[in-house]
């Protein structure tokens, strides 16, 4: 273990902004993208459902 305290861990030896800035954007995208893909899938299913209703 290289860290002595939590604050030292978050400071990243003075590079906190850069390290966490990188990880935060990556993590945010990796949460967002699956949600977008799932929504697209639901939308596709819903569109097919509406098509059926129109055709009766």
């Amino acid at each position, binding site marked *: 273990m290289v860290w002595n305290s939590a604050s030292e861990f978050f400071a990243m*030896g003075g*590079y906190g902004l850069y390290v966490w*800035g990188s990880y935060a954007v*990556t993590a945010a995208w990796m949460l967002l*993208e*699956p949600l977008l*893909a*799932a929504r697209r*899938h639901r939308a596709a299913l819903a569109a097919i459902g509406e098509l059926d209703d129109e055709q009766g």
Partner: protein
Amino acid sequence: MFAVWGLYVGFFVAPTDATQGESYRIIFIHVPAAWMSMVLYLAMAGWAAFGWAANARLASMMARAIAPTGAAFTFLALWTGAFWGKPTWGAWWVWDARLTSELILLFLYLGFMALVEAIDDTRRADHAGALLAIVGAVNVPIIYFSVRWWNTLHQGSSISMTAAPKMAHTMLEAMLLMTVAFWAYAFAVVFMRARAIVLERESGADWVQALAHKK
């Protein structure tokens, strides 16, 4: 799971880099993201080419499903690279051969996505996209070898098939674990998107109707 393991090794086990301090910990996502950006591009170009040559619709749909994820990894590679470059090189961006060719890769992804969406005739869009993807594939070896062909600011590869890795064992372990995690993520999200694309495009097919009615 691999991500948790990789992050644990990356943040708690791997030692501080002697010259770069803690900022080097960005490479645990930077390098896997850059690898994925290139691998996914080749996969996309491969599916697109197959979809064109063999007239296989599903292959073209796979190419479309891969493109946004590949573009995202390219962006993340550039983003994390900038966040590493600022404290290390003193600049967010330099017009270095590797950085520039990776930026071109991002534009190739975005161009592919824009092109296939812009053409209304789906199959024609697939073919046009395939042409762009195949021509653009030339860029991938350029990125990969750019650090060797030109005198670049970007350092050479840390890992090679022919020599022992030039980094500490735990650093390598964290990076490889993150790579596995990114692979798993890419597969999952690409197939999720592919499923949606298939439903959008094959909405007239009997099996799609059956699926929609079942819900």
